[in-house]
């Protein structure tokens, strides 16, 4: 057990994966000598060589398509997409190849590819550097999608992702790279919770607050603030975005009767919609109010001077908690159009 930053924990997970399995290769732009723009792959090329840690030409479709070819050959590529907003040139290869090859070949060809994507906003970056594209992938059958919220999960789930025989999109909350935490590296992968499980971060009884990735910390802060007002918030960290661990959310909502979901991605068609509608189906008679979504707006990611107005923060989450609890809130008085 040692203390390390989020970024270091992923680095340690990658190192271990490279050590354990000669078929693991890392691919991406600037991941070699530079160690990636976030230094997550720092030192790995030096230690494992340029054939295991591969600086690729600047072409995302090329990276993804050649990872598919490597997987055909029995490799387990771990691909780094430099920033969320640069994943789209690879979209075709992800959606039509990575996601579908196992189905297409009736299980003959496996695609054990891990796609690491630093994502989300809050770091004052220019356009295309702060996006939350996860819903595109959770709507794509054949992929697994996860997001991590603390160094231990980052380590454990990275290793689980690499070990998975199915392709995994692994979303790293870039604004948390420098957060530190305790990490136990001597884990038995087989004994860990499966990749698809959510985790209750704070237990509570009045309202269920579901989130993932960068907003887990914000949600926990909100729960603490709410506690000061005597409101008991249960915070669930999804961890797996596809499939979603609905059983845990369901159990929580049966207890609280109230649900708030928060994410940075735009509202329309975001994960909040899937969670709200599935939970409504599963818990209709237990819900005391409509599930509330606190999300980024339906806008392109704004210039950084405006990002604080787009990103859900503690206050907006608390306003959502108030709405779920039918307490006075910013929408009070607006009848019907409760949006």
């Amino acid at each position, binding site marked *: 057990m040692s203390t390390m930053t989020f970024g270091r924990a992923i680095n340690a997970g990658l190192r271990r994966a490279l050590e354990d399995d000669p078929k693991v*290769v890392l691919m991406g732009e600037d991941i070699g000598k530079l160690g990636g723009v976030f230094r997550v792959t720092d030192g790995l090329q030096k230690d494992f060589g340029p*054939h295991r840690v*591969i600086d*690729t*030409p600047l*072409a995302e*479709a*090329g990276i*993804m*398509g*050649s*990872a*598919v*070819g*490597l*997987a*055909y*050959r*029995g*490799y387990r590529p771990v691909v780094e997409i430099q920033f969320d907003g640069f994943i789209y*040139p690879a979209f*075709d*290869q992800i959606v*039509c*190849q990575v996601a*579908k090859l*196992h*189905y*297409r*070949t*009736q*299980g*003959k*060809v*496996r695609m054990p590819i891990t796609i690491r994507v630093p994502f989300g906003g809050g770091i004052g970056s220019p356009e295309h550097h702060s996006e939350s594209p996860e819903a595109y992938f959770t709507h794509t*059958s*054949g992929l*697994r999608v996860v997001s991590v919220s603390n160094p231990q999960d980052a380590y454990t789930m990275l290793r689980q992702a690499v070990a*998975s*025989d*199915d392709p995994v999109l692994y979303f790293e909350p870039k604004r948390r790279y420098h957060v530190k935490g305790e990490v136990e590296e001597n884990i038995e992968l087989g004994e860990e919770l499966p990749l*698809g499980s959510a985790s209750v971060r704070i237990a509570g009884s009045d309202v269920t607050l579901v989130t993932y990735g960068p907003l887990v910390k914000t949600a926990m802060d909100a729960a603490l603030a709410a506690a000061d007002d005597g409101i008991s918030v249960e915070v669930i960290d999804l961890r797996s975005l*596809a*499939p*979603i*661990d*609905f*059983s845990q959310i369901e159990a929580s909502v049966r207890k609280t009767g109230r649900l708030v979901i928060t994410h940075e991605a735009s509202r329309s068609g975001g994960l909040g919609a899937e969670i709200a509608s599935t939970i409504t189906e599963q818990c209709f008679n237990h819900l005391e109010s409509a599930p509330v979504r606190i999300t980024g707006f339906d806008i392109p990611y704004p210039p950084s001077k405006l990002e604080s107005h787009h990103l859900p923060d503690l206050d907006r989450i608390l306003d959502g908690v108030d709405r779920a609890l039918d307490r006075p809130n910013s929408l009070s008085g607006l009848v019907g159009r409760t949006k």
Partner: protein
Amino acid sequence: MRTDELSNSPGQQDSGLRGDSGIIQLVSPEGDLVGDPDFDQWVEDVSDEQLSSLYEDMVVIRRIDTEATYLQRQGELALWPPLLGQEAAQIGSARALRSDDFVFSSYRENGVAYCRGVHYGDIVRVWRGNAHSGWDPYELNMATPQVIIGAQTLHATGYAMGIKNDGGTSVAVTYFGDGATSEGDVNEALVFAASFQVPVIFFCQNNQWAISEPVGLQSQIPIASRAKGFGIPSLRVDGNDVLAVMAATRVALRRARTGGGPTFIEAVTYRMGPHTTADDPSRYRDANELEIWAAKDPLARVRALLENKGIFTPELEASVAAKADAVAKEMREACINMPDPSPMDVFAHVYSTPNTTLETQKEHYARYLDTFAVASNEGVNG
């Protein structure tokens, strides 16, 4: 002919590559040996027997093509993409491969699949709508047809990166069309292949058309020139000349096996049929274009060569026809008797590990189907 037989290139030196101007041709449309100082040597080991066997392959796959077209007209197949006219390009290249080479093709390379040893019924499985893949890629060392134009060229390149990492001597071979050369994927594949100097062959069948679009819309200069700008040597070969295609492929294979990196081959050929059975070429191309190319028919050419060599005997003709008949019959029967997939197969193999969301949907659909079973049982009993 077995796959490996022709794959042992004889001991020639790599003869280097020609400029854009020269199309490699070893046999004229009239079946005469042209006499090529550079490339003849690459096929000088091809015996009369092997030549006859290449002819047989071409007749058989033309027959497969015809039979599949019939099957489509009879409603047994949903669609079929004929390869009529491209037999030499496919047989000449595929027969040069070793069985451990790995092929990544498009949808039209059923002749290549034949050479890789596919079960005949498996050729039409996809086109009947029974499955998305006709065979196990690892059994034939050939990926199943790729529909997304150009995507497979990157897969081949990545596979070749793996071969190189493994220190292997096999080669990844990717087939694609003239139209595909415009896609970003194909160009990125050239970038990666050149950058990592991996053993991959880019085999472009320039059949002059991408559905209704003539090749000139994709490139106004020969397609083979494209690769040079990426630092990849290329060969332009008469795609209707089975020996020329084999020679070019062997040159490229030799280079790849000996660490020389990628090669691009443009096989200049012609799609004599429609794009698919759903297409109507009369809307966009002149009948006389077809005539011009019919005069260069790849089967007629190898037959003329055999005749000129005096080895085209009635026995050969009969045995080839018998083989073609047998293959066609087997394919037809396998096709017609292919069992339909069962409803719950719709959920199979989305993941290799259980997925809770999908399991729930599957469970529910099973229940839903059961309600009909119950209803109809009730109907029967009641």
